[in-house]
């Protein structure tokens, strides 16, 4: 809690109809680090991330960005500081990678000022950083799942925000592509100093790539801290009801969960 944070949730409650998903939740996303939100299915991981990105209407409490309630700020001004890549995003057929990345510049543009030097530089930089420059003119649907996800991340990068939120960016990718994508995200976090927060299903991948882990259970933060602090046999049992052994990953030294 001592770390500085521009993005936090205070006393946040969200429910869908009668079922409550988030329940008076408090969380802070530490600046400049890579935070991963984990938890069992239907624990509210995605709902929390969507709430942090003002995509979710909340019943109680608020999300605070830069000291002000996020829903009281103009959406455009929020979009210049915070980018979100939703789960399984879709694009119209035929859209090229380049045109997709250009759309990431929207909060910096208007219908009458559609292109500036800063736009060109940000798009080129985003394509370069994600290794998509060579595929820039290919239509999105002609790419493999892993490349397509890189293109979407390039779009979020082009938005040129300090904070980047990713909702399960590895869904439907095979293991090599999951590693590839998370390595890219980690590199972006390290090289550009962006704050990254994402939802991941895989605990071992979370432990390997995260600086900070938030474990949710029943719409509340059950435990948060460094991977070594959160990924323990006790927490796994409490959060996932998963009896397991946690060992140190022999290669990376990060905690590794071995289910019993």
């Amino acid at each position, binding site marked *: 809690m001592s770390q500085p944070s521009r993005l936090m949730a205070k006393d946040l409650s969200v429910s869908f109809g009668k079922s409550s998903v988030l329940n008076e939740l408090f969380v802070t996303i530490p600046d400049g680090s890579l935070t991963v939100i984990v938890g069992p299915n239907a624990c509210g991981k995605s709902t929390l991330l969507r709430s942090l990105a003002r995509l979710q209407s909340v019943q109680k409490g608020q999300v605070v960005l830069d000291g002000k309630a996020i829903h009281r700020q103009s959406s455009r001004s929020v979009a210049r500081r915070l980018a*979100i890549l939703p789960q399984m995003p879709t694009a119209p057929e035929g859209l090229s990678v380049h045109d997709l990345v250009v759309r990431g510049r*929207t909060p910096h543009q208007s219908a009458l000022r559609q292109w500036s030097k800063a736009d060109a530089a940000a798009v080129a930089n985003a394509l370069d950083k994600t290794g998509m420059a060579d595929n820039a003119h290919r239509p999105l649907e002609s790419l493999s799942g892993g490349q397509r996800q890189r293109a979407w991340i390039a779009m979020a990068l082009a938005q040129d925000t300090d904070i980047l939120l990713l909702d399960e960016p590895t869904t439907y990718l095979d293991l090599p592509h999951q590693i590839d994508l998370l390595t890219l995200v980690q590199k972006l976090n390290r090289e550009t100093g962006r704050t990254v927060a994402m939802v991941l299903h895989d605990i071992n991948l979370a432990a390997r790539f995260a600086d900070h882990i938030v474990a949710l259970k029943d719409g509340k933060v059950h435990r948060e801290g460094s991977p070594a602090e959160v990924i323990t046999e006790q927490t796994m049992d409490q959060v996932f009801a998963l009896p397991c052994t946690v060992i140190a990953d022999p290669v990376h030294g990060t905690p590794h969960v071995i289910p019993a």
Partner: protein
Amino acid sequence: MILRLPYLSFLFSRRAIVAGSALAILLAITLTVSVKLGAFPLSWSQIIATFARRADDVQQMIVLDHRLPRILTAIGAGAAFGLAGAMFQTMLRNPLATPDVIGFSAGASCGALLAMILTGGFILPGALAGGLVTAAAVTALAWHNGLQPYRLILIGIGASLTLSAGADLLMTKIDALTAAEMAKWLIGTLNTRDWSDVRLVWLGLTFLFPLALWLQFPLSRMAMSDDITTGLGLPLSPLRLLVTACAVALVALGVSVAGPLPFVAFVSGPIARRIVRGGSPAMLPAATVGALVTLLADMAARSFPIVQLPAGVCTAMIGAPVLMWLLLVQFRKGTL
């Protein structure tokens, strides 16, 4: 390609410019040919003479008071429908979600018909009110945790059928002669258009066209998803309202000068997007395709011997197979 003006800059794809120009040239050629086409044979030199006001009165009347208003009304109404269709298809991310399929055109026709029966005029306000009420009702009925396009389409088709029945009912309340005229108008017709129709449709377009083109920027973002639109900092709900209002106004404008002209709004967008490609909403090309389809349909209707066929019959003959084809494609892809 980038167009830069002081303080303004616009982004175009090269393909969109080439395709747009080609469509515009095609429209210009069709327009020229359609001036010559008709029951009364005229040579090119006679037609040119009428524009210089040097032909005889009959020729003058045929070209300037009969054919030209009809052609210009067809182009204006077709462009309005094409634009409205492309806007709805892009906003709702579904090619089936166009005003003529989901009942907004039928609502506008009913409103116009009602206004005509009750007051003998006020066609445009009637169409506008009918279109907006239908849009509001269909959206409200389809609303369920947000806007699901397939719900909107199914409820819209239901509304369309209900409103057609309503129009039929209204027809029984008026005398047979008026009813016969109205019946043609309800199919969509460009018979006996005069310069007042031309003025109405083009005046409306001068306001709505720039608004629609301005909306292309947010629409091309809304084409991705609601979450992405909001994530990019665009105000989703106000934009939806503005797009709907603008598209309904375009439909009302088209309906009040040419009747509902079935399927013009529906076919224009997919044809334009297939020509332009690149995932753009292709609104200007869609307007051009709409104008072209309407003009061609009216030419076909005019060249039909003996009977004065309403143009709506021809647009329906073009549109219905496209509808079936799109339904099959979407059914196979599972995106219905």
